[in-house]
């Protein structure tokens, strides 16, 4: 290494150290100001007591965790079903030929309907409407019905994500697949879908994070999940802290997924940049 190189490296290191220090200092000052503004507000002591009561929060934790466990189970099952059905609907929409017209039309209608319907209304319709039909074989379990509503809504979103991915595969790839004699089904299966799913992984993980918190909405049907558990705790303690704790639990659950989504997006970006 020449002296010039060493100088340059040393200079860059000192610049990096200064940047880190500045960022740290700025963060501390920013947090201090925020803390001061909140704690010096006139109603702070009452808010602190009813939202940030450590004792009540600690006592409610076991019940909330038990509720969260239900949320996680619902999440995993729903996510799997959503991925399968979403991909299925997207594939149905891309079918060609007049025979498939009704199937395509149904798929389009389904997506339009459930992408537009608010989740809460869907939950009420499925959760209270379906059992109200009093048909034999229809479950009355609020967890099952809530999960069904979530799957209905999210499948519509995920189907659109998959469709965007399918359409993003360049026509030259289709031409190449055709030219070596692959038929339409094989082309989709071996050439289009593998590329499409890779490309939409970041968007899918983003929907996964959204589904994670929306799982808390099955509480409106009476399922005792984390949100419902917090409601019960809040009603017995006359204090809102359990809601805050439940919220923190959901955030703690979402942060790793969000980082995973960022990582996946970064990986796709570098791969495409490498081409």
């Amino acid at each position: 290494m020449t002296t010039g190189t060493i100088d340059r490296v040393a200079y860059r290191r000192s610049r990096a150290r200064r940047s880190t220090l500045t960022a740290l200092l700025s963060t501390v000052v920013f947090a201090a100001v925020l803390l001061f503004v909140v704690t010096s507000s006139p109603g702070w002591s009452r808010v602190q007591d009813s939202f940030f009561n450590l004792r009540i929060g600690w006592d409610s934790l076991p019940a909330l965790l038990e509720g969260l466990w239900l949320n996680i189970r619902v999440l995993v099952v729903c996510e799997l079903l959503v991925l399968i059905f979403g991909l299925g609907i997207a594939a149905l929409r891309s079918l060609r030929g007049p025979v498939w017209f009704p199937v395509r039309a149904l798929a389009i209608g389904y997506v339009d309907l459930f992408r537009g319907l608010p989740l809460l209304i869907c939950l009420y319709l499925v959760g209270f409407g379906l059992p109200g039909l009093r048909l034999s074989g229809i479950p009355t379990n609020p967890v099952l019905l809530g999960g069904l509503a979530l799957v209905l809504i999210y499948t519509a979103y995920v189907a659109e994500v998959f469709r965007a991915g399918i359409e993003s595969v360049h026509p030259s790839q289709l031409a190449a697949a055709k030219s070596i004699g692959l038929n339409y089904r094989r082309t989709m299966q071996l050439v289009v879908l593998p590329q499409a799913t890779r490309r939409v992984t970041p968007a899918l993980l983003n929907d996964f994070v959204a589904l994670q918190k929306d799982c808390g909405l099955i509480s409106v049907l009476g399922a005792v999940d984390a949100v419902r558990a917090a409601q019960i705790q809040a009603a017995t303690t006359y204090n809102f802290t359990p809601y805050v704790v439940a919220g923190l639990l959901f955030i703690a659950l979402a942060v790793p997924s969000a980082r995973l989504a960022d990582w996946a997006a970064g990986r796709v970006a570098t791969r495409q940049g490498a081409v």
Partner: protein
Amino acid sequence: MTTPVLSVRGLVKAYHDRAVLDGIDLDVDEHQVVVLIGASGSGKSTLLRCIDLLEDIDDGQILLDGRDISDPRIDADAARQAMGMVFQSFNLFPHMTALANVALAPRVVHGSTRKDAQDRGRELLSRVGLAEKADAYPDKLSGGQQQRVAIARALAYEPRLLLLDEITSALDPELVGEVLALVGELAANGRTILMATHEMAFAREVADTVCFLDNGRIVESGSASQVLTEPQHDRTRQFLQRFTDRLA
């Protein structure tokens, strides 16, 4: 006289009333190399894509070994299996290794076992000089290497006819040679080839027939020396003039 491998009769292809191909007649005999030359937009690529049934045609016939493959009632997927096409922009499948690209058609279309398809793929890759790149993904290969993999992919199922669509146009000048050398080798081995190119020197060397296309018509065709050195038509002369100007 034997039936030509490919016979195009009165081919018409139009986009929105604009005829891109305006009555093309063309024969390619077995073991022949036919080269299409002409300016960009003259219809060379469209002609090749129509022959490979990647575009619907508006009129005329395409006969492969005497069988009309332009008939909309035949199975186009099956017809394409007798032809191999190589594209200007390579169009390798980016999510598959070089070997997987080459082995795909034999395995899923022609029913080879995975092992047979891979053995055959390795053999082809070594023939195009890329044996050591079998497990590389396309984005790790140079343009010339990608195009050689694409040629191997098109050869993997022993097509009757090889269609090459300006396969060196997207390559850096120093990579053109390696791809053309490979095509020259294929020609020498008796492959039947129909190719569009701007490489006049190469055309002169390997072409049995050269066809000059202009505005969707074959203006002039004949032996390479005839068309390239003693063109009969003004348009052909104008077109070739630009190449000689560039060389001078």
